[in-house]
């Protein structure tokens, strides 16, 4: 997708009332590409449903303590007598523990609710940092060109050549793993792809007449980059960001699953699934429910992300496909 595609998607050519009778003619109004995208998104039922699911997950995360108070089970409280069988194994879903307990006799439902906080928080924050770094790098590389471009492009090449998971694990083994480290590791490794996209867009935009005009009027590089160019890169950036969130959520869960992400006793989906590995033969709920939570979250974000992409970039294959 290029900016040109979006800009050229003017109201008239896209869905304007061309060929509509005289009574339709007065409906002609200029609609901005943003407005058009928003209207398309609103009509996309799958995207709207998945957006509702995302809101729901966010509410679960925000009101996680509510789950604790309704069930009366603390997130880290180990119920050794009622939460475990006489053999010390997890107990299954019941009226007391709706989604069962884990290996330490903790309430799986409450921990899933609290785990949503970590997942969403890291997913959103790490993505935001990634996009911020990537945007600045891409803008600088594309706009300044020459040596700046060479250095940043080389940096991108290096980042893309480093095996992510291997390196992330080594990093986490040196620094004590924590939420902060996870966010830093995820951002360090993902900005390069954002930078590549932004750089490509900037390269084509910076030669446009209006940028030249801005320069002629005496605008400085920062003003041109952030006020004149950035808004025209926003559409692909928003699409990419939406689709990056589920990727980041999965990456966080994977790191925690491998034991180098969020550490116990903090409730985290990836970590719960890792802990359940030794118990799935006796406690399927311990594995299945956190897995479902993770799957529903990534699925909702991916469907919504697809919707956002289609809204901004209504190419023929997607409209007719």
């Amino acid at each position, binding site marked *: 997708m290029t900016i040109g595609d979006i800009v050229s998607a003017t109201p008239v050519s896209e869905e304007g009332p061309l060929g509509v009778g005289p009574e339709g003619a007065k409906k002609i109004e200029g609609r901005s590409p943003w407005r058009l995208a928003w209207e398309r998104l609103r009509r996309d039922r799958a995207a709207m449903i998945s957006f509702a699911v995302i809101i729901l997950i966010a509410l679960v995360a925000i009101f996680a303590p509510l789950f604790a108070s309704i069930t009366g089970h603390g997130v880290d409280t180990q119920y050794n007598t009622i939460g475990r069988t006489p053999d010390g194994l997890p107990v299954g879903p019941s009226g007391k523990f709706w989604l069962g307990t884990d290996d330490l006799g903790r309430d799986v439902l409450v921990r899933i609710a609290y785990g949503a906080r970590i997942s969403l928080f890291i997913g959103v924050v790490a993505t935001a940092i990634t996009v911020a770094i990537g945007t600045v790098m891409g803008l600088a590389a594309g706009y300044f060109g020459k040596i700046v471009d060479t250095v940043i492009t080389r940096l991108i090449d290096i980042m893309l050549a*480093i*095996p992510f998971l291997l390196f992330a694990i080594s990093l986490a083994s*040196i620094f004590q793993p924590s939420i902060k480290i996870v966010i830093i590791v995820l951002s360090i490794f993902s900005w390069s792809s954002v930078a590549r996209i932004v750089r490509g867009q900037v390269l084509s935009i910076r030669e446009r007449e209006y940028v030249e005009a801005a320069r002629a009027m005496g605008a400085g590089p920062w003003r041109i980059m952030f006020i004149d160019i950035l808004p025209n890169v926003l559409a692909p950036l928003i699409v990419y960001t939406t689709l990056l969130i589920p990727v980041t959520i999965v990456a966080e869960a994977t790191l925690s699953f491998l034991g180098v992400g969020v550490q116990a006793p903090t409730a985290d989906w990836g970590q719960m699934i890792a802990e359940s590995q030794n118990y799935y033969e006796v406690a399927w709920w311990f594995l299945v429910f956190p*897995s479902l939570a993770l799957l529903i979250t*990534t699925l909702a974000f991916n469907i919504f992300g697809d919707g956002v992409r289609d809204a901004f970039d209504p190419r023929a294959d997607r409209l007719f496909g």
Partner: protein
Amino acid sequence: MARFLVRRVLLGALVLWLVSLVVFAIFFVDPAGPDALAHRLAGKNATVQMVAQVKHRLGLDQSVPVQYWHFLWGSSQQNGLLKGSLGYSFQNGVSVNSIVKQAFPITLSLAIGAAILWLAMGLLSGILSAVRPRTMLDRTFTGIALFFYSLPTFVLGSLLLLSLYYYLTKYAHLQWFPATGYVNFTDNPGDWARHLVLPWFTLAAVTAAAYTRLTRGSMLDVLGEDYIRTARAKGLPERRVVFRHALRAALTPVVTQFGIDLGTLVGGAIVTEKLFGLPGLGFTAINAIEGQDLPVILGITMLAATAIVVANLLVDVLYAVLDPRVRLH
């Protein structure tokens, strides 16, 4: 072409050198690093002398640039990276080369099977979807792809172990799939495959889903082009239009992605290898990390980075072969 190749190889070498710098710096520049490391390796009850001994034996008492030089070129005792040696394990002194040689066939077995699987599934469903857009078939494939695309590898692997290994054995008494372990292909090809079926599928599913989406989009783009209309207009059978005319052009982005994905697999099958207890490169690396065995981590990281760089280079060359419009410079 020759100039392009030389340039790309030099650039790749530069990138690899910089990667080695970054990786090395991460481990050795942190002032607490080597000391703490020597302490850990010497054991809890080690005396000061023992720690110093360990430090000396592993070369940790030398300055960082000297250590880097030894890693890159080698010292009087051992060869370095540029002479083809990845170094020696801190833990048992075994050369990293031999560790890699042992682990590589396992990762390769995993990677090849998974790659065939995801190519077959992704291409087939993607092409069928694109040829019959908006039909039930298309929607089914697109839906399945979205599902697997959203399913993290470790979740899929765990659920496969629960259902196809545990439940199948327990309730249906069918021991089709063993949970863990690896059997050499040369020892027993049947057992080799049986041990790898679940890992193959686990590793392939996400990528297959991505390929379905990629192939479908790319095919639809191409099928909308004028030359396809021309081909149809001159009365060519649809099969020929789809496979001869459209597919070749549509495959270009898929080939690019395939090269990159294959390169990433060398260090990227960590989750699958760990889940199914396959002692490949990723599994070895994660064990080395737990044991703070820096040379092994460094060696495998460099190997994995090399695989990515080489794969990218091959993709660029292949790109020009597949698509004559691409000019190399």
